[in-house]
């Protein structure tokens, strides 16, 4: 009966995706790394041996446990205020992952909405949104972020907004171009002919077809945002002390590079493990969801 009308493609079944993911060992490794980091961040109060701002002046600048002068009470050593490095790296996972995650969600909601509306309605709105994106992309992002954070106050909300600024364009552009393609398909035409409202077409027919690219973009954006946050915090324009973030810890580590290398090494390892994990997982996810995607 419906043979003449093109079938609406289902979003690929979760089962198939999981099976394809499973075939990629590096993807599993990435997922494990990210999972571990998220678990540690969530369980920070349980797994961190000390509080992030717990100072002990007699234990200042202790080297890691396995070096001469190290103690088993501070596995990764201590900072110039005698704060436990391991605990601070763990607590910082909360800050860094939390801020990057929230910024990504803000960017996603705003960007996807803009992309859907811009692609579906076209016209002036489309021109306006794409123009805004162009203008923003004519700034080297990090320099723009530095200028914005310096001229505004480096508060948590400002930081999240500045980070979200980085990613919304990517979502908006990708979703818009997907919508332009899907809009031409027969099932959208059929839905329109049946009298479906704009809202129904957008949420029931367009949305499901842009989910795959959104998921893939999200993984890579999360990695980018973690690096962006740590860069800003490294420059003193992001997370403010005493709140620990990997970038801010590295900024302190830089001052002690010649005398206490562990301050500048462990937070960096945490960043790279997280970002590497996300990138590995993202690669596998892209291959599993849609190999043609080039994000």
């Amino acid at each position: 009966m419906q043979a003449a009308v093109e079938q609406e493609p289902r979003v690929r079944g979760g089962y198939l995706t999981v099976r394809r993911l499973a075939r990629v060992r590096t993807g599993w490794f990435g997922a494990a790394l990210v999972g571990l980091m998220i678990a540690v961040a969530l369980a920070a109060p349980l797994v961190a041996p000390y509080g992030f701002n717990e100072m002990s002046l007699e234990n200042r600048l202790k080297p890691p446990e396995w070096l001469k002068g190290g103690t088993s009470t501070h596995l990764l050593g201590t900072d110039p205020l005698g704060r436990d490095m391991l605990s601070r790296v763990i607590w910082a996972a909360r800050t860094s992952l939390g801020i990057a995650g929230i910024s990504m969600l803000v960017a996603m909601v705003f960007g996807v909405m803009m992309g859907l509306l811009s692609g579906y309605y076209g016209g002036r709105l489309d021109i306006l949104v794409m123009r805004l994106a162009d203008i923003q992309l004519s700034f080297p992002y990090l320099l723009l972020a530095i200028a914005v954070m310096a001229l505004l106050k480096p508060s948590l909300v400002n930081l999240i907004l500045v980070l979200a600024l980085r990613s919304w364009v990517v979502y908006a552009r990708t979703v818009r171009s997907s919508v332009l393609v899907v809009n031409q398909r027969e099932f959208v035409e059929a839905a329109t002919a049946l009298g479906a409202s704009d809202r129904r077409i957008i949420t029931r027919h367009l949305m499901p077809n842009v989910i795959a690219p959104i998921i893939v973009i999200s993984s890579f954006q999360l990695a980018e945002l973690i690096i962006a946050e740590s860069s800003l915090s490294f420059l003193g324009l992001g997370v403010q002390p005493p709140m620990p973030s990997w970038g801010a810890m590295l900024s302190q580590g830089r001052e002690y590079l010649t005398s206490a290398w562990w301050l500048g090494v462990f937070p960096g390892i945490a960043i790279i493990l997280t970002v590497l994990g996300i990138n590995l997982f993202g690669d596998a996810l892209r291959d599993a969801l849609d190999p043609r995607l080039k994000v």
Partner: protein
Amino acid sequence: MANLVLSRLAQAVPSLLGVTIIAFVLLQLSGDPTQLLLPMEASEEVRADFRRAYGLDRPIPVQYAHYLLRLLQGDFGQSFAHRRPAMEVVLERLPATLELSAAALLIAVLIAIPTGVISAVKRNSIYDHLSMGLVLLGQSIPTFWLGMLMILVFAVGLHALPVSGRGSFAQLVLPSVTLAMWLLALVARLTRSGMLEVLSQDYIRTARAKGLAEVVVTTRHAVRNALVPIVTVVGLQAGGLLGGAVMTEAVFAWPGVGTLVLESILKRDYPVVLAALILVATAFVLINLLVDLLYGYLDPRVRVGRRG
């Protein structure tokens, strides 16, 4: 081609205007200049005089129009800290940043393209897996942390290279390698996927069927075509390179525009920050324009495909 040049130029204008609007808005948001520039004990009358003298009492759109006019005349305001035109201060630091970026670009391209090509030709070999693994690692390291590791290993550990400053060739090595890494990773990856795509084309099979040596097929037929999109990507990454340059300069105390911006932020010398932002954004828009035109020149299909 002339049409293409004109349409691209026309598209660059709104972007440049947008740059000035954002700079102006940031300036407005930075707070009351009289708080910043006048002594704390300045009376309200002195502040009012100051506002009148600098046109700060006029409506915002009028202020913006004046701001834009001044920019067009090359007046980017006075640096508070240096007591000289802000743009002059920025331009003095530009050569250092350009030197660093050019060195990094050169290193990245020289290493990345052969790496990517060999990876694609020897797909799924140990070499391919190893180099792509390293590339992924390179993409996951924050530039500033890589710089710190470089300092730890080569300067603190081995005493082989200087930690900071600019002047000698040895001082250029660590910063430029640091800055190159991220671009290197990106270009190597793209070269590999571009090559894989080209190698599956019909004309490559034809070339092989003609009995051409594999080396000739790879270098003369495949690489040339694979490189075209890479030109665009490298150009588009100019902004990322400049962002990375800021971080690299910060780590190595390299006296470029990046460190100037950071110093100026600490001194609240906003005219310098904005002059640098406008200069870099303008350069970025122009680079993209050039890349676009170069792409049209390299790939004739682009000229036909887009309506000029």
